């Protein structure tokens, strides 16, 4: 299920502005990798370029090679929707579809991709909601609107929706920044469980969170405003947080900068 993500010389632009430059990084299957760094350093841009979500914005483009188990997703003959089905994404703010019920939200990915059979959808809905630790809270009201849940529940609903299409890699863009500590804990626990099946890459501003959940950590930074973001250091999380090789990394994680 899980796949290796390999970035080499990835550079991304917003129009003429170069947001990240020459990112080289390999993410092993069934690991959690955290991307940390100050605001505006390109972590989210890099994350969004992994499932070709970056190019959704007008004028945005990506250069370089990004391979998933050896397949370059930026090849000309690659189908973008197939890439995104393989690489799911959870966003900063929970974004359940407002016109759909809880059940419809979870199976939206399957249904909108042509799965009609009710038994398959029912099974996928229950499995994903169980995996997202949400089943017990919503099993009695699957027909109610997804937007009626609390923020933390909505985010877990979005995670359930993402894993329902059985992606190989799950990208998370600050998934807990809009949530309270209890919901955050629930989602961190969830990441531990999901690691068995998926490759997870998470952007976070919370360094304790990076230290708690990730196996490997990548530190991004910029020289000054307007410069492209670069990968400064990428290593085992323990090493980054105890004995970083770079002065900048140390400054950032000890709170002296950023």
């Amino acid at each position, binding site marked *: 299920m899980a796949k290796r993500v390999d970035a080499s010389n990835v550079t991304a632009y917003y129009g003429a502005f170069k947001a990240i430059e020459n990112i080289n990084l390999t993410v092993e299957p069934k690991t959690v990798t955290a991307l940390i760094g100050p605001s505006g350093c390109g972590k989210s841009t890099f994350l969004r370029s992994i499932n070709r979500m970056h190019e959704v914005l007008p004028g945005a483009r990506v250069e370089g090679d990004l391979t998933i188990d050896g397949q370059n997703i930026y090849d000309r003959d690659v189908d973008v929707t197939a890439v*995104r089905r393989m690489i799911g994404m959870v966003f900063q703010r929970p974004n359940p579809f407002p016109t759909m019920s809880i059940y419809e939200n979870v199976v939206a990915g399957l249904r909108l991709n042509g799965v009609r059979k009710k038994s398959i959808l029912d099974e996928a809905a229950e499995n994903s909601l169980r995996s997202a630790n949400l089943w017990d809270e919503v099993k009695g009201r699957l027909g109610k609107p997804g937007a009626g849940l609390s923020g933390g529940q909505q985010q877990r609903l979005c995670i359930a929706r993402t894993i329902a299409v059985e992606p190989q890699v799950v990208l998370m863009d600050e998934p807990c920044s809009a949530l309270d500590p209890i919901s955050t804990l629930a989602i961190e626990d969830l990441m531990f469980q999901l690691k068995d099946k998926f490759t997870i890459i998470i952007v976070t501003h919370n360094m304790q969170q990076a230290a708690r959940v990730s196996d490997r950590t990548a530190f991004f930074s910029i020289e000054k405003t307007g410069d492209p973001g670069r990968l400064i250091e990428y290593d085992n999380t323990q090493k980054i947080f105890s004995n970083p090789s770079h002065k900048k990394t140390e400054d950032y994680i000890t709170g002296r900068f950023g």
Partner: protein
Amino acid sequence: MSTTVANHPTRPPAQPATLRARRLPKYAPPVIAAAAVAVAAAVVYGTSIGGPVLVVAVAALLYLAGLFAAANAVEGRRSARNRTWSALIHSAFVLAVLPLASVVWTLVSKGVERLDGNFFGTSMNNIGARDANGGAYHAIVGTLEQVGIAALITVPLGILCAIYVVEYGRGRFAFAIRFFVDVMTGIPSIVSGLFVLAFWVLVVSPVFNDGRPGFSGFAAALALSVLMLPTVVRSTEEMLRLVPAPLREGAYALGVPKWKTILRVVLPTALPGIVTGVMLAIARAAGETAPVLLVAGGGAAINLNPFENNQSSLSLFVYQQAGDASKYAPARAWTAALTLVTLVLILTIAAKLLARRNRLGR
């Protein structure tokens, strides 16, 4: 809290000693209002310079002044301003609703006279100036068919156009479309009627009509479409832009193709707003007289076929009956106007209910 204020070097503490303040008694505003009306009535009728309208206007001004003075004396300046502005805002609301209520009242009171089966069951065929009966059946049919056809043309076209502009259009072409839609919004209805007269009735339709100009309900529908299209496009466009980008990205991230995202996520989310915009366009089109007058040809008989021969419409019927010399015509005009307003109202309510049914209950 008080310490931070007190420590501020330049400004002395202005904290009130107590949180309580004197308030005007509850009965004060109505008493002031009653006094204002009494004084106004005494002044206006005493000097006999005006009627009830002037009494109300003077009373309103007196009430505002009296309320401000009373509140100022008892509660202080800030509260007096608050009360005066609240009263002004409420009066503005009443002023805005007054004409509407007056229109509804006039329509109902004058329209009820001919609100009978005969009106809805017959046409004006063979009705002379001395006949008291005669109805608007042909006009109702005409309005429904013309507006229906116009809606069939404009709703898909307008929504597709808005989707193009919002979701796909880039650069100059999309900009040009938006610009011309804006220009079209300002087209006077008579111009759209003239356009269809010149283009369809006099040039295109004679080809199918043995060389004779084809005045028809369909021509009226075309003219109404020209008027409805920009409204539908603009309102749909605004509603689509209101759909948050993260919803689209959420669907993309599930591997859903763009067209399906638009169809199954974006459009349903924007649907209630789109329905409102379409209903506004339909309401406007149903009330248009000028284009219908020019291209539908009017006519007193029932004609169920919108593609051939003259057809009437309710607004045209109102126009014709209001200008008719028969003493029975004005009553028919009022009832037709009432029918038209009711028709639009029913359509609007039905559409709102439909849009709500598609949304989930909270």
